[in-house]
């Protein structure tokens, strides 16, 4: 149940089940199978519909747009999420515009996949979590891979939609095991799920029932895995009880599960690896501060990486990026 393999199997199933699915991306064809090997084996079995492209991120997105407008379901890999910058015009001025500006007469359900994030020493241009800049693009869904969401469900859902999506995959997830809920548990934590109609699911994780938790932690992607460990440890070692909410969809965001949790705990910590300022957590803080104005015990804590480049040096990188230590510290403060 290695995440990279599961994701590859998901894409394989998409290709097998739906003849409209086309995979595009740099170096995604066999034998290489992509920089992170997610697509390995797929071009061998679906040579027409799994295509290595030239190094042209803008055109990858643009050709995907055309495919989608023509009824296909392109899933394009942008080798490093850092290079999503080169697709920004296509995403903002083309892909997400068509359906709305054409009064619903066209659809452009492009899915962009982007291996993202740091902690690997790849340096300033190969380690970023740039998804925050795509949040709030009208008509764009931003979705994050995590270990508690089955990629099969996510892609099945995305392929049901006619709207475009950006799916970010933190690189550190690839070698990890998917940890889906079994019998209401994930590892040492209670697990349950919330799905508002039309929204992708969020997962709740906590050591004890919500009523006994004094803080809500909202996190996605790899940071959600880090946060889960923190939540588990704080419960075991310090009897600090937190409920972790892990959404799969970051924007538009289904705030209901967060609101439900914070209504009980009275306190919120948001966690993300992107840089601080105008970030995912910012919107969470704004929304929850508004919705639960009188019920918040204390201000929302936003945990994000420093507003800076991601250094190459391991030491400097890990002090610049959010790690378990920062999460731990924030949860302790906010649980009080």
């Amino acid at each position, binding site marked *: 149940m290695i995440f990279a393999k599961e994701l590859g199997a998901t894409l394989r199933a998409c290709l097998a089940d739906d003849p409209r699915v*086309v995979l595009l991306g740099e170096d995604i064809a066999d034998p290489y199978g992509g920089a992170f090997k997610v697509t390995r084996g797929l071009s061998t079995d679906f040579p027409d519909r799994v295509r290595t492209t030239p190094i*042209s991120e803008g055109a990858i997105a643009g050709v995907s747009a*055309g495919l989608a407008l023509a009824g296909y379901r392109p899933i394009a890999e942008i080798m490093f999420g850092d290079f999503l910058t080169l697709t920004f*015009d296509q995403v903002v001025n*083309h892909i997400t515009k*068509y359906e709305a500006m*054409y009064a619903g*007469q*066209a659809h452009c359900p492009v899915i962009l996949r982007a291996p993202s994030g740091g902690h690997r020493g790849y340096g300033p241009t190969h380690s970023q979590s740039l998804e925050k800049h795509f949040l709030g693009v009208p008509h764009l869904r931003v979705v994050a891979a995590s270990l508690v969401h089955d990629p099969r469900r996510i892609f099945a859902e995305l392929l049901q939609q006619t709207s475009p999506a950006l799916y970010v995959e933190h690189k550190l997830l690839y070698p990890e095991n998917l940890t889906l809920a079994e019998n209401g548990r994930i590892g040492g934590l209670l697990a349950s799920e919330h799905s508002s109609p039309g929204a992708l699911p969020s997962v709740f994780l906590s050591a004890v029932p919500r009523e006994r938790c004094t803080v809500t932690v909202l996190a996605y992607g790899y940071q959600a895995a880090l946060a889960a460990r923190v939540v588990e440890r704080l419960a075991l070692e310090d009897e600090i009880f937190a409920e972790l909410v892990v959404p799969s969809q970051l924007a538009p965001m289904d705030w209901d599960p967060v609101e439900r949790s914070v209504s009980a705990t009275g306190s919120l910590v948001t966690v993300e690896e992107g840089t601080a300022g105008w970030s995912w957590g910012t919107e969470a803080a704004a929304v929850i501060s508004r919705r639960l104005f009188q019920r918040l015990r204390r201000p929302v804590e936003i945990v994000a990486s420093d507003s800076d480049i991601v250094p190459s040096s391991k030491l400097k990188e890990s002090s610049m990026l959010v790690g378990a230590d920062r999460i731990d510290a924030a949860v302790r403060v906010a649980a009080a």
Partner: protein
Amino acid sequence: MAVVQGVLDERLTGYARESRNERLYRRMRFIRRFEETLLSLFDQGELNGTTHACIGQEADAVAVMEHLRDGDHVFSNHRCHGHYLAQSGDAVGLLAEIMGKDAGVCRGLGGSQHICAPGFKSNGVQGGIVPAAAGIALANQLSGSDAISVVFIGDGTLGEGAVYETLNIAALWRLPLLVVCEDNAWAQSTPVSANLAGSMRHRFEAFGIPVREIDSTDVLELDDAAAEEIQELRRTGGPRVLLIHTYRLCHHSKNDDDRPAAEVEARWLVEPLVVHGKRLTDTERQAIDDSVEAAISDVVTTAKGLA
């Protein structure tokens, strides 16, 4: 002409019984008068926003659309009215759209530069439509159809990197894409000489893409060229380029023309309606002009009456 929106008016789109020469003249005249009417509606304050007329370039649109079929797709740019009218004949839908009406072809949301109808789309951001058109061509290739994808770009748009990224992919994958590059000598206020180094033709050929280059405002010449290119594209796969040297007679958008008056005047002598109009008798021409005029006037009345 691929697909029709709403009720077609043969006074604008042509009659089965008329000669090729009459038909082509009528269709160009239609576009010309539509745009001139539009500009005067702007001047009268009846329209807001902006618009880019293709006065002087009507022959390109008409020539290309003559050879498209149902299933083919046209992607156009900011200067899309002529392309859209030649493709669809839908004058009321377009005018209502530019008037911002619900009855417009995009319910007034898109406006002048953002038109969508079956087999047709446009977007006002330069360059980015080219990969989209290539994606549509790829869809055709994957589904085994012999439909083609056509994209119109201007000389100035050769400044955008997206064009080259796409030429490379289209050539590598042999996509059934026809790029129609309308070199009208200017990009907004900038002459080609200040915008473009080297050779337009070689820009495409460097990717191994065949280029048919034609310096003409004669719709018959253009029609022949387009016919051959489109036939070749369907027969052999693509991509191909039709590079047309022409001229924009009006300002870029509205009231923004600093070009030398003598240059513009000289081009009025060889504009498509003059060049092709000579092939008709005065009576034939007058008859068409009158019927187009009446039809355009009906279009305006109809569009004004819509919600």
